[in-house]
């Protein structure tokens, strides 16, 4: 411990005595850490269990069904979102914990007006079934979710978000109050904590209403206009659910005389993020992120490595002196790594600050990326990135790991080359 304090003290002296080198080094490290961390936070938002999608690791998604004629001479082919009858079929399967159909929003999070007697505000409205409240873990501040009998009776009961309640009524105490949406009156039965706009399309909304209150078109036996999310009982049972669904579809196709139906999915939640129509290349997509991360790290690491090499040459006599008085190569190597680690840690702090600046100034830009651009200005949605997205151990652990890797790549090689010199050559380096 004593030794490390000493190394850090020396490192601090070195930083102060080489202000230009240190500030360039710290800024360089900071920028690359900021970029990597921004990417990491985006990935974290996209894949980590976050409110209200805490079950992402055991969620399966079906967004598309394909229909072909059994008659092999026909080329007729349909592709669409599935419908609510598929939802009720899946509901019966033994390994399924919960399933929901969310009415598809083909145009992204489109806006309509909600109004009271006094005011009116644009909202994002989502039509769902009652299973929705089991698949997703919404936090009810007041009231209750709508249930199956609400769905069956087509009762016009809605759940609103906290901020929407405030926009409409200036208070969160809104149970039993009515709002008007597109000419119909709805009664508020529940208030939930806001969902950040960066979350999945299926959960981002201001108002939730039973799908049965809207005109929904089940075009065909399995084709319709909802998207399906399923939770398995545990993440071990994901494959079981997949198998049961495949079995169920097989039987269904046997009974149907005219058509074959094929689901595009079910995909695990994270794989569903990489699906483009029939193409699912999650490995390639993941590799792409890997390359970006690699480039974000390796390019600055090489630059920093070059900077360190030239500094190492300047410090060669110091290494010689230390060896003359009894330092071992190992001790010197760890000294250099500690010094550099301190610089990189400072870089890490700078990086975290830059990263938060990017994320907070650019949160609507990030929302856009996460929704593939299908979103209007998010000013009215609660688009703030939440604390759990930004300040979490994963992100900090990642930053620390990145610091560590950057440090090793950029310092280890130049340092070990310098240490290979004989003492006398280090003391009197050739010009």
């Amino acid at each position, binding site marked *: 411990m004593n030794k490390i304090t000493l190394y850090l003290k*020396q490192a601090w002296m070195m930083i102060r005595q080489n202000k230009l080198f240190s500030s360039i080094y710290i800024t360089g490290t900071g920028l690359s850490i900021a970029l990597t961390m921004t990417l990491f936070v985006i990935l974290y938002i996209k894949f980590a269990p976050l409110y209200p999608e805490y079950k992402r690791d055991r969620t399966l998604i079906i967004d598309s069904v394909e229909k072909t004629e059994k008659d092999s001479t026909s080329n007729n082919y349909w592709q669409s979102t599935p419908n609510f009858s598929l939802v009720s079929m899946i509901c019966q399967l033994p390994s399924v914990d919960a399933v929901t159909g969310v009415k598809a929003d083909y145009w992204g999070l489109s806006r309509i007006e909600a109004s009271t007697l006094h005011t009116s505000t644009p909202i994002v409205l989502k039509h769902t079934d009652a299973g929705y409240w089991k698949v997703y873990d919404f936090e009810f501040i007041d009231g209750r979710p709508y249930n199956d009998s609400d769905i069956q009776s087509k009762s016009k009961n809605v759940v609103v978000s906290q901020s929407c309640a405030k926009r409409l009524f200036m208070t969160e105490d809104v149970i039993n109050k009515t709002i008007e949406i597109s000419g119909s009156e709805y009664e508020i039965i529940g208030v939930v904590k806001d969902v950040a706009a960066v979350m999945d399309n299926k959960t981002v909304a201001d108002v939730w209403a039973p799908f049965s209150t809207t005109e929904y078109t089940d075009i065909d036996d399995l084709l319709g206009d909802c998207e399906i999310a399923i939770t398995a009982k545990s993440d071990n049972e994901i494959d079981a659910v997949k198998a049961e669904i495949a079995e169920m579809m097989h039987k269904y196709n046997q009974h149907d005389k005219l058509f074959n139906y094929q689901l595009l999915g079910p995909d695990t939640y994270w794989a569903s993020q990489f699906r483009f129509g029939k193409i699912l290349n999650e490995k390639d997509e993941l590799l792409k992120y890997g390359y970006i991360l690699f480039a974000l790290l390796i390019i600055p690491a090489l630059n920093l490595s070059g900077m360190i090499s030239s500094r190492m040459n300047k410090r060669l006599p110091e290494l010689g002196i230390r*060896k003359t*008085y009894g330092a071992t190569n190992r001790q010197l190597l760890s000294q250099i790594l500690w010094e550099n680690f301190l610089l990189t840690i400072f870089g890490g702090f700078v990086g975290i600050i830059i990263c938060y600046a990017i994320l907070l100034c650019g949160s609507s830009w990030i929302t856009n990326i996460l929704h593939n651009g299908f979103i209007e200005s998010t000013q009215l949605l609660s688009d703030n990135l939440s604390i759990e997205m930004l300040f979490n151990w994963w992100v900090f652990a990642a930053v620390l790991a990145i610091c560590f890797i950057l440090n090793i790549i950029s310092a280890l090689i130049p340092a070990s080359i310098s240490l290979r010199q*004989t003492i*006398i050559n280090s*003391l009197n380096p050739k010009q």
Partner: protein
Amino acid sequence: MAIIKLTGIDKIYRTKEIETQALENVNLEVEKGEFLSIMGPSGCGKSTLLNIIGLLDTPTNGSIEINSKLIDAKMSDKALAKFRNETLGFVFQSFHLIPSLNVIDNVLLPLIYRGTSHKESVERAKAVLERVGLSHRLHHMPSQLSGGQCQRVAIARAIIGQPEIILTDEPTGNLDSKMGAEVMDILHELNQKDGCTIVMVTHNEEQARQTSRIARFFDGRQVC
């Protein structure tokens, strides 16, 4: 008993263009408590010899024994470092202080690698700096000191670990005669009071005559 024993030392520097034989079959013994001067014209291999004795460089051929211990290529980096740290002290012509450390931190450097506690190291550094007459410059940086002061810091650093052997390469070469005399006084005191064995490379006949023995070199060979 010889504290340093060199047998058949050759040193050949090979570069792409030329080969320089810096030392040729050097056999030299230094007795414990001796103050040996090494003299000879520039380029005759004095520094090379001293560096080899100090384990800062390796000979092409020949063997070195220090304190009856044979130093060979098989010794680990760690063992060699321990040897330099505990048995040897160096004073160079160009001081070789670490510019980013202040006087006291420069002086206690050998104790860091010995694992001495920081508190004790500081105490001992203060004591040796007092001995070389620099108690009033503890927190100065090397760049703020005169040449003579730098050399006294270097001596303090060489003796803080109480080594048996002090090796010094033209310690007064960069100093004026008054400062040079001060440095020589300190070295003599170390030799006489502390019983340090000293090997000194010098160009100064008068300084050499005050030491116990002179070894003269010419073209890589000892001539007397």
